[in-house]
């Protein structure tokens, strides 16, 4: 842990400075929010507060909505079987129409998980500030934006004023240097980072991810990394924009066009961290040291390499860790000291705002083609958006998944948080490409979640137990 000693400005500093409206009496900044994304779970109460206070949405042109948490993934027919879910989608539609907000609903063909939709529409851009009533808003940092997850009263604040009262964060630069080994993906990298720095190691910080391994990643891989910043306690995480970023954005619906594009790219280049940028802390990680990673416990920091054993209470380094390991072992019903590999699974879930984009689906499809999910395993592939879904169908991926024994679903959050019909039953154990393994997270108060990369989920689904993708599939070196 050490500051960089640099003199230059980092991206966070530049973007923050460009968006400070004024300093409030308690020392917090009133920060302008460039883009506000909303969804059906955390916005209805905020609209209710606006109505009570007789306020309007300050910048309806900078507010975009979609529906993701509660939407069923097996049918789109309304009314939904769950009247509460129907009530929420109705409330969102009413509010969008009442306040003049663009709503990417199912009829538009552009519905999806809010953190998949923003980037694919070209709304998520470098150098901007973004807020959404969802902690995984950090995803948008992959583009060099500063993106905050917020609560509902803050959703109200952004709706009414397009600003938030926020304290400034410190910045930790995390360098992942070198080339990732075969079978190690963005998901493994972020799980490894959280394992190293802890689930609250990032409190008070924004994480800036860089180094040659991150530079080599495509935008969807960078989104996977930034997505889970909050699981490490960091409210925001970002990657500096580069040619990969610009080429992803070019031509997207809401990306600038013509002369405005050229101006935007110049501006985007100017917000990147300077070579001698100052950081409050710098962490270096050797990419070669990372192996495929999987969680065994009840928070994302409870992670081990696929060839390691489930921890024991005795092996924990201090009283706090002992208590944490003991609580997790009791809940997970895993044998301490036994290999995680080979643990029998019941459910396999590929989806969520962490891993449901084309890169994930193409990679899994490539390796599961011609293979089959093990008997008795319920396996789901849930695309992150309708655009992803359509593209996957165009490429024939849906047929590969269904032939391999996976259910191919409609776009939504699905089994990540179980606010829709996709849930674990009793103490089922799920190999999941999502982001949280908290007790009860997947909808059963005794349900168990192992977080891993989509390819490890696929390998585990095929074997029927937690499996190393390097052993199940014939992987090829990237760029070979």
């Amino acid at each position: 842990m050490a500051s960089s000693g640099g003199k230059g400005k980092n991206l966070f500093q530049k973007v923050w400075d460009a968006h400070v409206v004024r300093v409030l009496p308690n020392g917090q900044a009133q920060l302008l929010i460039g883009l506000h994304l909303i969804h059906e779970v955390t916005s209805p109460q905020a609209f209710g507060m606006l109505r009570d206070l007789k306020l309007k949405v300050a910048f309806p042109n900078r507010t975009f909505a979609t529906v993701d948490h509660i939407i069923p993934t097996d049918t789109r027919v309304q009314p939904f079987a769950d009247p509460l879910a129907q009530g929420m989608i109705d409330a969102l539609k009413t509010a969008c129409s009442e306040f003049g907000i663009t709503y990417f609903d199912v009829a538009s063909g552009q519905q999806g998980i809010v953190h998949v939709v923003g980037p694919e529409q070209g709304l998520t851009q470098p150098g901007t500030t973004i807020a959404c009533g969802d902690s995984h808003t950090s995803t948008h940092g992959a583009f060099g934006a500063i993106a905050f997850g917020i609560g509902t009263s803050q959703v109200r604040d952004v709706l009414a004023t397009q600003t938030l009262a926020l304290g400034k964060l410190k910045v930790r630069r995390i360098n992942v240097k070198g080339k990732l080994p075969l079978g190690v993906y963005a998901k493994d990298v972020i799980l490894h980072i959280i394992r190293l720095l802890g689930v609250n190691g990032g409190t008070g910080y924004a994480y800036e991810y860089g180094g040659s391994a991150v530079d080599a990643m495509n935008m969807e891989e960078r989104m996977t990394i930034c997505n889970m910043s909050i699981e490490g306690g960091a409210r925001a995480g970002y990657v500096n924009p580069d040619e990969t970023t610009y080429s992803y954005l070019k031509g997207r619906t809401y990306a600038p066009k013509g002369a405005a594009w050229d101006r935007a790219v110049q501006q985007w280049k100017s917000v990147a961290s300077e070579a001698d940028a100052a950081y409050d802390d710098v962490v270096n990680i050797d990419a070669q040291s990372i192996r495929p990673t999987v969680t065994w416990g009840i928070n994302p920091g409870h992670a081990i390499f696929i060839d390691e054993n489930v921890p024991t209470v005795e092996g924990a380094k201090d009283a706090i860790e002992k208590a944490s390991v003991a609580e997790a072992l009791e809940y997970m019903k895993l044998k301490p000291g036994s290999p995680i590999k080979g643990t029998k699974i019941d459910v396999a879930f590929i989806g969520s705002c962490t891993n449901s984009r084309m890169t994930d689906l193409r990679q899994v499809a490539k390796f599961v083609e011609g293979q089959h999910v093990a008997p008795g395993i319920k396996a789901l592939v849930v695309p992150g958006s309708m655009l992803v879904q359509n593209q996957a169908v165009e490429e024939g991926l849906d047929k590969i998944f269904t032939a391999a024994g996976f259910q191919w679903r409609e776009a939504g959050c699905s089994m990540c948080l179980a606010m829709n019909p996709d849930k674990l039953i009793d103490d089922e154990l799920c190999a999941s490409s999502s982001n949280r393994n908290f007790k009860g997270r997947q909808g059963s108060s005794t349900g168990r979640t192992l977080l891993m990369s989509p390819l490890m989920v696929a390998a585990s689904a095929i074997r029927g137990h937690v499996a190393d993708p390097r052993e199940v599939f014939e992987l090829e070196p990237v760029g070979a």
Partner: protein
Amino acid sequence: MPLEKIVKIDGAAVFVPGNDIDTDRIIPARFMKCVTFDGLGEFLFYDVRFNKDGSSRQHPLDDPKHKGATILLSGLNFGCGSSREHAPQALQKFGIRAVIAENFAEIFAGNCTTLGIPCIQMSAEGTARIAAAVKADPKTRVTIDLESSTVSFAGQTASFEMKGGAREALIKGEWDALGQLLDGKDQVAALAGKLDYMSA
């Protein structure tokens, strides 16, 4: 919008032990299928308070000795995970007026402050002393004084920290920022006008 000045909170405390207590545990997602926050109180910590058949799991919140407690005491990284304001809303609707913990997840703490719930960050030693006093006598009166940044209980005191201007905001009755944010309207419009992407 005049708000209550939150300077002192006193009442009985209840200790909910554990580290990394996440907001999914504080309010499971299925109870968020609602368009108002009313009624969330009864679902607070639901899955650790009740078995699937609805029988009690003897959680401290349901211990008759702690009935009416208004201060919740816990461990490290309280409120981690999801940004759901439903978590502090459920605490408040249950009757909790302040949380004392070793530290807090950031989004949770911000959500609490906006609702006028102080998040009192205290050393493990301090929280352990309060927990011990409450265990010895559940009726122990715990008094949080934001002006002196101390908690007094059973003839003892413990000091605490509060981050990010929250203490000042609570004491001055400015914990809900909306009024101040609205006051900045003209400056917001001026700044937005300077940023190309805001008019796109």
